[in-house]
């Protein structure tokens, strides 16, 4: 056997070649620049100086409390993105993250309030509860797709609407919420037991949520599962070509259900940072919309664990610093939504252009290299 190592090394170098990195970064950077430009124009039309707005946002992000806020929020966003991305990696459009996390967080809050075990059992118990409920709820869409051929896009949209009703049915005094006093108008579950509180790290800028580590862990597991396990290979193969995966022996039906459940299980975690680190109970105004936000972040980060981390930070930066805008300069905070929208759209277009360019480049390179090889051998034959 000739040593394969030089070749392997060369290929590794090839993989992280400068061109690829430039290509990978070109899209998001271009998109952000473009959307900053568009939003600047919008802000200017409202008669404000856009640079003041950017200044407010960037200044806040340089402050310690702003940074803590951004990181804490990014933790939640990252989990939401990971949940959506897990499905996307096999072309499964789980639009239902929204419903899954709500139902899961509600149950976790209920269990957390009912049970009071030592923290090292209590917290895993709540994590498992949330993941279980999220997974179960997602499995409905998976099963419907596999057995009844119902598109998951439609079924999860319906399940999102139904989840609101589920919360409505359960989050009432006497069921999951305590009997209300006559003066209280906000309904929420009892607070979770003290042992359910997740640790946080006190910093100068406030408490940094320990759940950040869970998010990082999810990202690492996500990456590991996808690139280092058989299951992950099957999943990616299915995402790239369902027909080829089927022929290769992947049980696509099983994969659909499993991925849907895993996606739902990750979705189950989305509400937990807020629940176990901040509000300690699930109320009627528990933050909605994270599921849809997660989808956008996943798209922005190309469903890759690293990319999504950047995307989550970017969105969190926009949301956190954007809420400073009305107070410090009277800018409408709606500009943040515009900005997120333009970034997502610009980025997906840019990714597609870059992808196509990259593929063509590679084909040309392969063609050229082969032609060169062929010419070389021909010459050799002639001279021989």
């Amino acid at each position, binding site marked *: 056997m000739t040593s394969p190592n030089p070749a392997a090394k060369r290929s590794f170098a090839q993989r992280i070649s400068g061109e690829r990195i430039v290509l990978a970064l070109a899209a998001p950077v271009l998109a952000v620049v473009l959307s900053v430009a568009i939003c600047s124009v*919008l802000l200017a039309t409202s008669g404000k100086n856009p640079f003041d707005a950017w200044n407010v946002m960037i200044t806040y992000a340089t402050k310690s409390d702003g940074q803590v806020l951004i990181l804490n929020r990014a933790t939640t966003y990252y989990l939401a993105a990971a949940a959506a991305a897990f499905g996307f990696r096999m072309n499964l459009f789980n639009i239902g993250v929204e419903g899954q996390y709500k139902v899961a967080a509600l149950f976790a809050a209920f269990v957390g309030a009912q049970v009071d075990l030592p923290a090292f059992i209590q917290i895993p118990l709540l994590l498992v509860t949330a993941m279980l409920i999220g997974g179960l709820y997602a499995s409905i869409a998976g099963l419907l797709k596999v057995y009844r*051929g*119902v598109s998951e*896009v439609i079924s999860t949209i319906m399940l999102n609407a139904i989840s*609101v009703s589920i919360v409505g049915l359960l989050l009432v005094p006497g069921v999951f919420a305590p009997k209300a006093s006559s003066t209280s108008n906000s309904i929420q579950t009892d607070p979770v037991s003290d042992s359910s509180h997740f640790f946080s790290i006190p910093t100068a800028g406030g408490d940094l949520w320990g759940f950040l580590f869970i998010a990082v862990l999810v990202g690492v597991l996500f990456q590991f599962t996808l690139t280092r396990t058989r299951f992950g290979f099957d999943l990616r193969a299915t995402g790239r070509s369902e027909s080829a995966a089927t022929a290769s022996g992947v049980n696509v039906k099983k994969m659909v259900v499993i991925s849907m459940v895993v996606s739902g299980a990750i979705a189950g975690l989305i509400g937990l940072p807020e629940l176990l680190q901040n509000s300690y109970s699930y109320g009627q105004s528990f933050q909605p919309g994270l599921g849809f936000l997660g989808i956008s972040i996943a798209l922005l980060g190309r469903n890759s664990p690293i990319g999504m981390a950047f995307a989550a930070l970017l969105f969190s930066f926009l949301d956190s610093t954007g809420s400073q805008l009305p107070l410090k300069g009277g800018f*409408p905070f*709606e500009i*943040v*939504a515009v900005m997120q*929208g333009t970034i997502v759209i610009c980025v997906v277009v840019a990714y597609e252009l870059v992808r196509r360019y990259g593929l063509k480049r590679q084909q040309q390179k392969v063609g050229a290299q082969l032609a060169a090889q062929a010419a070389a051998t021909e010459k050799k034959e002639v001279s021989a």
Partner: protein
Amino acid sequence: MSTATAARPKAPGAPAKKRKLSWPVVLLLIAGALVLFAAVGMATGNHSLTSSGQVSAALGSAVPIGMAGLGGLWSERAGVVNIGLEGMMVAGTFCGAWAGYLVNPWVGLLAGMLGGALGGLLHAIITVTFGVDHIVSGVGINLLIPGICAYVNRIYYKDYISAGAGANQSPPADPLPYITVPGLSSGLKTIENHHWFLVSDVAGVLGGLVTNLSVVVVLAAVLIVVSYFLLWRTVFGLRLRSCGENPTAAESLGVNVYKYKYMAVIASGAFAGLGGAYLSLVAAHFYKDGQTLGRGFIGLAAMIFGNWMPGGLAMGAGLFGFTDSLQLRDPESVHVLILIVAIAMALLALWQLYRRKFTATVVSLVVAGGLGAWYALTDEVQRPLIVATPYLITLVVLSLASQRLRMPKADGQIYRKGQGK
């Protein structure tokens, strides 16, 4: 790819014999449903399911859903999946209310369509020209357009507070006219009030069709019929549909696929925009942030439910409109609806038994029994559940019927000119 896969005909054996829903069958089914409703109405003394008010309200609620669905239909028939309908509807609500206030509601309708069409144009640029995945583009549009509308609302209407505008609301526009057929409407109402078995129910349904209809409801109905005609009976439609079935084939025959896709997606946005304008000009008289409440998605579901056909789409939208307005108008009747669904499931079970599908029979029977028991053991449906009825029904119907659905063959696929195989 190889010719072989493209050319593989349907499996050999029995000759293809399609069982299509023909007009007589459809009419018979409608008649059957009416009898069922009438009988249940008689038995329970609750006649609101077939009352004229309910029918006309159902039509009204169906309009935004139906228009979104029609938008979906146009776009998907040309091969472009459009989940950006929701965003395009928002554009319609905003532009409709804006022009409706500044000029008049008729111009508002037009402006709403125009706003939606702009959203459609954006979707077309992203998906057709740049070849981005259709769902991804739709998600982006649903994020962007509501953001822009909310932003513009806030900065633009600052000076209109005294006219009734607010931070996230536009000033009110004038209403659009309603149509009532003079003699017919009241005559039917009289019959309806007698609660005669079936006769009154028919009168109620017919009455709903001629009483207090917004002109936009009529317009929407006309648009659905016109869409059918355009798409299935004209050259334009043939070309458009060919782009959704096999764009490369269309291209090889000189059809400018990009052009048709663009037209379809823009039209799609315009229909969604009209649905939005209905919300901000008829259902309410002003724009409000978050007014569409996911109707774009429901419209899409209605279209799939209707098997990518205008008639089916109208039925799907009607079903949504019916349950949605019923739960608002008359929450108690939702309880009666359970009984009706239970009986319908039992009938379905009989049909399946006749077709010798035994497992399906058992499943249907169990569902029917469960629903029947629920009806018998309760007096009312809990409100959160009432709100969920349309979604639950859609899920159930789709899980029963989705294997019969057939979407355009190249739907959702990315087409590049000159790169067909």
